[in-house]
């Protein structure tokens, strides 16, 4: 059987000087526009937005870090209230993340999730850019903030990193603060902070 080809005479139209005038028919119709600052649009449910992380469920397996096509995930050792978490947690860099949510699909315990919020804008200041690099907060907390404002913005207003004490403070939008310490990166647990100092000295000694 020959391939089915529609005849050219069926798809070819003759040019016309009259038909273009039909284009004017929308002149008195209501414009199809969403006036963004005044009107709002709801993103689809399960729109792929920012991540959420249940810190108690994450087992630090780094599956998410391995599947991430943009290598946006770095495992991070965290100390909350002076107690180090037993497992590392993923820290996501939104400068690289493509929001493919492969990391969410691959997470074996379901600790990593995502939520519909998608708006994050900052100036070019170094301090503000810190917002793009975070350990996601608990899903319930995120949901609460999203439901409170419903403007689909990032739930953290400011992230303050203290270079010396390595203390990180999230200033959430509803006024709460959330503090923890980053004690190290990578899959291996960091050495207790007292040890590296003498080690460095030893090395220096040996070199000398």
């Amino acid at each position, binding site marked *: 059987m020959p391939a089915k080809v529609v005849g050219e005479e069926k798809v070819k139209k003759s040019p016309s000087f009259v038909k273009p*005038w039909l*284009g*004017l028919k929308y*002149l008195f119709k209501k*414009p*199809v526009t969403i006036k963004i600052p005044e009107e709002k649009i709801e993103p689809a449910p399960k729109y792929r937005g920012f991540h959420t992380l249940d810190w108690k469920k994450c087992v630090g397996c780094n599956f998410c870090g391995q599947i991430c096509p943009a290598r946006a995930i770095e495992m991070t050792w965290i100390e909350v209230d002076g107690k180090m978490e037993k497992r590392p947690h993923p820290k996501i860099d939104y400068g690289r993340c493509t929001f493919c949510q492969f990391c969410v699909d691959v997470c074996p315990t379901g600790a990593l999730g995502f939520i519909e919020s998608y708006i994050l804008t900052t100036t070019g200041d170094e301090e503000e850019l810190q917002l793009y690099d975070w350990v996601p907060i608990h899903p319930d907390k995120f949901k609460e903030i999203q439901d409170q404002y419903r403007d689909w913005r990032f739930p953290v207003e400011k992230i303050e990193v203290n270079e010396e004490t390595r203390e990180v403070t999230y200033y959430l939008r509803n006024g709460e603060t959330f503090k923890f310490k980053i004690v190290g990166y990578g899959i291996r647990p960091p050495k207790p902070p007292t040890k590296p100092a003498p080690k460095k000295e030893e090395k220096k000694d040996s070199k000398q």
Partner: protein
Amino acid sequence: MFGTFLKALLIILYATFVGFMFMGIIRKVTARIHRRIGPPIYQPIIDTIKFLSKKENITHGIIYDFGIIFALGATILALMFIPLGSISIMRAYGDLILITFLLEIPMLGIMFAAMSSGNPYAGIGAQRALLTLLAIQVPLGFAIVALAEFYGTFSTYEIVMAQQTSGWSIFHLPLLLAAIAYDIVLQAMFGKEPFDIMIAPGEISLGPMVEFGGKHMGILQIQHAMGLFAETLFFSNIFLGGAVITTFSSPILNTLATLAVLLVKQLAVLLIAIFVSTIFPRFTIDQAAKFYWKWPTIIAALGAILASL
């Protein structure tokens, strides 16, 4: 003397303001046809203020600066000759050929400036603009001849006065043909699609305008606004009967009514231009030249022949 000067200033201010409103209307109506909302109607004024307040100005020499001033000057001069109802400065000398000529000079000024910038895009744009300018001459000339034949005078003001008694030009068949040809030419003079070949946004990245920025662009915007006003005014004067209203007893009321009537006529001309520009895509330069030498020329020539019979 001083009174004339003041009058000229008022005409310029009025023309600039209305011209900017026309530019805003163009954007607004185009947006509505696209089912968008579009910018507010005063947007071109804001744009121009922004252009004029830019800190840096690139210049490529004297001709580059001069060309733009030249364009603006020519537009202002054209404005002085076109009768604005009963108000005008030099309406006694406002002869059809002179005004037609003056309305084309701005394009030459912009060409000067563009060519001296040394940008190849500007060069291409200038070539295209000159070819368009060449192409529109033929139908334009026939349309003018038709008018002059019909009314037996070249004076714009006399033509306006003649229409007061004998009805609008477009109601006479030979002049209707001339008006159609002139309206097609107007599309190119406005620089609107389908004949916006010299600017051609997206094709040759703004053509002659490609190098202008800051104050140069601001002045060009003002020139464009005035040009829009002058061209629509000229068309409504010679084909739509102009307006000299003497129904009221007070001269001020008469003047205001004249301006209002003229404004409505100008808007009608403008709206047709907007409609055509939103629904027809751009011609290539060879198509445009062929087109102008064919249909509008035939129509206008027919009009001229009929008018002289």
